[in-house]
């Protein structure tokens, strides 16, 4: 479908790489549909001829169109920005749409992200997990005033602080950090790096009135910041290179200190000046 390179083109780099011979790829996919449990989980192999610039998005669509129309997987933007296509690529959680086959060996193993409800084959229900996490951590601005007058000038913000918030706001909820997390694999109620990063993001934001006491109530236990075993798989696999290691360590320290100090004043944001 879509933008796959013509199969018969022998080379093609829009740039100018030397003529390459086409590899025959073997793509092994872990397949299972929980709605048909009579067919047990299994690896199925598909052969695909590599093309110039081929991504796993292109390869999987080609397999579905020409070999097995029942193969399930998720892509949306196919540009690495929407976070739909997280899967285990040779065992490592990554975004399939921007993974070039040329960077992989001739045999590629694909499996669904662990830690999420399986829909079928490579498709997992990250949306359901992320919504539950958002509801639990209340991942929205808790504004200081009930209504703002949208005709008036916006509240000013230090440009550097806006940039810092943006850095954490870049999370695309792809689920790779959960799939790579030891704690998340052991306890279903762990909010993971994605959740803790969000707490870090709102904690930075002067528009949110919540204090460290509030955040402690949300994540101050083993399902939150104290559940992290510091294995840092999340940090290694994050497709957006978010500073997850620093975020979790910082948050843990702040919340631990907060727990042994007298409660902060409501609305106060320790450590940050708006």
């Amino acid at each position, binding site marked *: 479908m879509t933008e796959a390179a013509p199969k018969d083109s022998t080379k093609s780099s829009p740039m100018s790489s030397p003529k390459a011979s086409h590899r025959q790829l073997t793509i092994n996919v872990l397949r299972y549909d929980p709605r048909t449990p009579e067919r047990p989980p299994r690896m199925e192999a598909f052969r695909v001829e590599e093309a110039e*610039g081929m991504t796993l998005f292109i390869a999987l669509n080609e397999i579905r169109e020409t070999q097995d129309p029942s193969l399930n997987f998720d892509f949306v933007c196919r540009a690495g920005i929407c976070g*739909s296509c997280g899967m285990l690529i040779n065992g490592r959680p990554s975004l399939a749409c921007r993974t070039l086959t040329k960077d992989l060996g001739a045999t590629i193993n694909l499996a669904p992200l662990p830690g999420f409800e399986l829909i079928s084959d490579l498709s997992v229900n990250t949306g359901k997990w992320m919504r539950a996490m958002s509801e639990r951590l209340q*991942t929205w601005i808790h504004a200081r005033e009930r209504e703002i007058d949208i005709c008036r*000038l916006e509240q000013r913000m230090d440009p550097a602080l806006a940039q810092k918030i943006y850095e954490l706001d870049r999370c695309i909820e792809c689920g790779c950090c959960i799939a790579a997390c030891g704690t998340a694999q052991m306890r279903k109620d762990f909010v993971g790096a994605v959740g803790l990063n969000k707490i870090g993001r709102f904690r930075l934001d002067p528009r949110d009135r919540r204090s460290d006491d509030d955040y402690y109530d949300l994540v101050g236990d083993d399902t939150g910041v104290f559940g992290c075993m510091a294995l840092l798989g999340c940090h290694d696999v994050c497709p957006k290179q978010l500073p997850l290691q620093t975020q979790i360590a910082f948050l843990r320290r702040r919340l631990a200190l907060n727990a042994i100090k007298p409660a902060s004043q409501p609305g106060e944001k320790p450590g940050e000046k708006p």
Partner: protein
Amino acid sequence: MRIDYTDVLVIGGGLAGLRAAIAAKRRGHDAVILSLVPPKRSHSAAAAGGMQASLANSIKASGDNEDVHFADTVRGSDWGADQEVVRMFVDSAPKAARELAAWGVPWTRVQEGNHETVIKGQKVVITESKDAQGLIAQRNFGGTSKWRCAYVSDSTGHAMLYAVSDQSIAANIPVRERTEAIALIHDGGRCFGAVVRDLISGELFAYVAKATVIATGGAGRLYRVTTNAVINEGMGAAIALETGRAALGNMEAIQFHPTGLFPSGILITEGCRGDGGLLRDVDGHRFMPDYEPDKMELASRDVVSRDMLEQVKKGKGVKTRLGEHLWLDITLLGRAHIEKNLRDVQEICRYFLDIDPAKDLIPVMPAQHYTMGGVRTDYRGESQGLKGLFAVGEAACWDIHGFNRLGGNSVAETVVAGMIVGEFIADFCDSADSDISIATSLIHDFIARELARIDRLINDGGSEDASRLQQRMKEIMTEKVGVFRDGTMLTAAVEELQVLLVKSGKIGLRNRSRGANPELATAYRTQKMLKVALCVAAGALARTESRGAHARDDFPHRDDANWLKRTLATWPNEADDLPTLKYEPLDVMGMELPPGWRGYGAKDFVPHPDTARRNEEIEAITKKLAGADRFAVQAALMPYEQLLPARLRGRNERIVLPGEGASP
């Protein structure tokens, strides 16, 4: 058969649908969102470079206001837009940007003092005002006379989508993820919800609602080379069309973005050129000044796309085995700027092409990008043919874009239309007009009809392969209904699409599962997409002029005398193999800005007979009101404030930048 009920059924979980649902919910109406994917994965996330809103904080935005945004948008539309709706839009855009600021969008902010920047290929230093410190910053975009794009690096849509989606979670609005509306339920010119398919279990059920909202985005996947996400298949437009009642407006108006990454079509944001990036040909020559000496790389998208293809026609494309392309050069912006403000571009270049845009050129070619047309609505966002059916965002033809949309106006439209139309939806739900009066047996009939269609696909063992039909359709659209069009190509396109439509009645499936079966979804979507594709191609064939993004080699001029009108396509009978086209004239005598030259692009056009008379009227009114403030003059030319929901009225506050007068 299962029937669920709600007040407002929103089909589509992108920015427009989410914002409309929030508006309805805040007014006390229950809302449910149906979404193919988790809302935060919607294509809104792909809006990169920014949102147009005349906040006028940056020094290069000095003098910007609603009037300037209005004129830019109408000129950009090549006078196809509904000017009253444009006024509602430009008035509300700053309010929407400020609402988003309060909801947590980390807008890039103004830093007072000197900044080095690139303007028209030259390095210059601009000085941001002390008074603007910390307010929302603006960047430049194409087709605008001021810097107006509020932005969050180059992931503006992502940041907006996350903030608005999180607000919808805060408002406790349920989202039925991985569900698809496959038909609208209607009776006697009134829409009552939709037949919905659960994409995991395959179950069909009805969602009955007082108000139904199409917010499904565009139809980019009618084309092979598109910037659009794979979910942008025009299904909302299709199910509206299939009612035989609702009309689609201006479907032939398709935008091609100048800088689709070659060959995949992945979007490289206009922010690259807005921030000073240049287009170069095979010789490294910067060719846009040859075509557009004034606006250069920052003419409107339709104009730049055409000029690029002209340059390729002259033999100046970079030839590869996959076709030809041109270069986008952002190396002059410097690594620091790219890593801060064009970060996704850098990532895309690195992952997909293994190049570094701070030192390498980016291969680009125009790619389908935006569907200006959609479900035709009135200024309240309601379909005129089917009451109780509303449409917002790219899926709608509310009509602020006419025949060419300005960059940054679409993501602005999502939140502005969501805000405005959401209020009108709530008004409708408050009124007796919204009473649900449909018979349960009729709802069952609608479910049964869809069930029978799916049964036929699964059981009939047809001979046609859905994905092949779809591929062929994409080829036809890309090759024959593209940037440059002519009667011969369009006639061939229409005929071939008709053949494909007939074939799509004989699709057979290899996988007969009813549940999570991608082949089944491809099959019924292909049947619908072909109807939408026919609306595009037939509309383009009928429109014997060039306007905005619709460029006919055989009719190269804009023809206001005959074509200053909006195409309305309907599909009255299921057995039809062509849409029925009607036209809705635009009233020059009511326009605040009568048709003229856009300030870029072709200078020749056939004037409308009323244009001269309206210009005289406007001159007389303006003369009479000499000395009055701009609001009084505007109100005398084309009053619009009464059209806005009461809670969204009010003048937008701005700072006074150096060199500006004290009055607003």
